[in-house]
């Protein structure tokens, strides 16, 4: 691939899971943004002995749905002025919806990436992309307009963790793969006897977690 070109997001359906899965239609992310997010979740969740790659786990779909939905539009966020810049411990103080802030940070990270590598983030090799994310997360990656460290810590990383561990009904954690990985049994209705029977012992239900769709 030539420097500066971006892999379009179109192939995501092919890499997104079982052959019979419906094609992915991103509702917030445009092609370049989707390519960035898919690269990000593949680096943060590589295919390994624990799970398939992040795209196949539905992590990009989760992030896209959150950005397109109520969270991304600023639900439960106080958005009246006056606007005053704050320290990190003051919490979110920007007059941007989370969706806009996500995309602003994404573009800024890509800009930083092009300065470093001459290519978009989506075009980096896995080790390169991992190193770049480390630079962003540690605060070493500086951008004149966007606090990339805050962007990553307070928006991107929580979305990544939620994508992995929320109920699959939200689009991530496909096939409950992360629940199986850690041994979380999901949503049983009754543990009144289990809390005694399995106190200090392996819990059989942890091998076959139940999600909302399994319930009934």
């Amino acid at each position, binding site marked *: 691939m030539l420097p500066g070109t971006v892999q379009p997001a179109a192939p995501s359906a092919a890499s997104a899971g079982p052959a019979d899965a419906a094609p992915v239609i991103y509702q917030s992310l445009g092609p370049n943004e989707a390519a960035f997010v898919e690269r990000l979740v593949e680096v943060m969740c590589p295919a390994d002995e624990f799970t398939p790659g992040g795209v196949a786990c539905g992590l990009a779909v989760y992030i896209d749905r959150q950005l397109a939905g109520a969270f991304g539009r600023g639900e439960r966020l106080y958005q009246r002025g006056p606007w005053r810049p704050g320290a990190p411990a003051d919490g979110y103080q920007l007059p941007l919806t989370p969706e806009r802030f996500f995309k602003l940070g994404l573009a800024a990270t890509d800009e930083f990436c092009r300065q470093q590598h001459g290519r978009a983030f989506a075009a980096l090799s896995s080790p390169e992309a991992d190193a770049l994310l480390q630079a962003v997360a540690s605060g070493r990656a500086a951008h004149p307009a966007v606090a990339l460290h805050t962007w990553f810590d307070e928006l991107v990383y929580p979305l990544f963790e939620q994508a992995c561990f*929320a109920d699959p009904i939200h689009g991530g954690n496909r096939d409950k793969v992360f629940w199986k990985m850690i041994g979380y049994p999901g949503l049983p209705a009754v543990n009144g006897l289990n809390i005694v029977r399995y106190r200090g*012992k392996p819990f059989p239900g942890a091998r076959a977690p139940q999600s909302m769709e399994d319930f009934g």
Partner: protein
Amino acid sequence: MRTLPHCSVVVVGGGLAGGLVARQLARRQISTVVLERGGDRHGGAESRLPTQRDELRWDVRTGLMQDAATETYTFRREATATARPMRRLAAFLPGTGVGGAGSHWGGQVFRWADYNLSLRSRFEQRYGPQAIPEDMPIRDWGVRYDELEPYHDLFEKLFGVSGQAGNLRGVIQPGGNPFEAPRQNPYPQAPLERTEAGQIFQDVVTREFGYRPFPSPAALSSGAYENPDGMRLGACQYCGHCERFICEANAKGTPDLLLYPWLARQPGFTLRTHSHVLAIEHDPASRRARGVRYLDLATGEELFQPADAVVLAAFTLTNTRLLLSGRLGQPYDPATATGAVGRNFCYQANSGIAVFMRDRWINPFLGAGCTGTIIDEFNDDNFDHAGLGFLGGGYIGVNVTGGRPIGARRLPPGTPRWGTAWKRANAEWYAHSFSIGVQGSCYPHRGNYLDLDPDYTDAFGQPLLRMTFDFRVNEEKLSAYCTGQAARIAKAMGATILGPAAPRTAPFDARFYQGTHVTGGTPMGADPATSVVSPRLQHWEVENLFVVGASVFPHNAGHNPTGPVAALALRLGDDLARYTAKPGRLS
């Protein structure tokens, strides 16, 4: 504005305190109207399987709590700083809807050590007057524990509290909290089951230190239960979706299960939901509250509810806000330490340490909001503070509440934040880790207070409340000490790995949940110059106005506030029955 038919008592807030006040009035058929800004959530997705079990929606996104887009708070750490709004509520989570935060609480019900009600006297006697810093305006509350004991007892019976008595009529009971205030009766139900982490904690603190651990007293029903009003609870199923969730099994003692359905059947009682109170209307000349002006959210119409007596029983911070916006009482001024409204605002100094034990199956998903095992040896003034340089303390214990996987995973220090090594650490430690927590007291500080923000308004166009708060030297020292005690216990457990002992320190950080136990702002007391309400919770200037909730606490202890809130609310209900029969200053 339309004026509605007159009632004897109007209560602002359909939560726990308001429901308990209303119960005492309804028993005497005194006409009462409760105004609640939210709706009744029983019957919706939040209280039904499987949607009740949605960690993302109800816990991470706090879907049941007050919506910051409608109303939030501004904060700053010093009176000289410029406040910013909490644009996302995270540090504490006010409730809304029928039952208030009590509809989705964790159920911890403590009786504080009885000396808390006379804290200044206690410290002066034990350590001398000079031991209390000048900028720490602790006081005696003006009420004795033996006056509140019957109400603690009644609340425990109404809410079916599960627990092990620690002090029965002055006799210390094995397995209970030896520091609890003496009780006339045992808890109405046996304690909840202990978790594996609780067992480990119990064994170590007993064997290695000689402390006396006890099960957290819980308004979670350990069995099938019927309360004195004939209201029923099922047995807790330890489903792990408790605090921050509405219990679909009817096993959690909540106002929306135990109080409001009973009240709905009583003559003279009215609950109005979707009723957002805008102001307490009062007549400065006669020094009487005329009633409450509110917005009917279902019609958009402003209504006026006249009443003989007004009870403020909203969330802690809302009580203060309505007094300030209604110009009721003298606002506190930190420069001169005069005025009463907004003073003695306290939080809690909570902290913890993560414990990783490779060979123990913690199974954190087997738990409930209050399946804790704790010690009180380092709480409040249960230990000698001579030479320590601080006052107060906290409970130390383990409370494994459900292991919900987005928020309740623990990873050893140094674990990468993503990638295969991150996954491996999650897989290795999720079922084999827990935390020892400290719930630390917070005493008032001259510089910590509440007032109205000059710049920001809510969705109704009214000023937001402004918090000026930070953790002060006393909290930092007590948190360092108590977190150190927790670390000693953790070390004695023979853990594979320990996380860092991280005491609570300044600056206050608005991004992270630190507990919803904010207190003060309308403190009770015997001196009208420094208190908003009398020891009987009667407003000092407007005689027919009463305030109840944690907003009346002059300080916050190292225990959850609901026990004293409930006892004060039930007593106020009885006082109001006297007051409506014979108005005047209650003594």
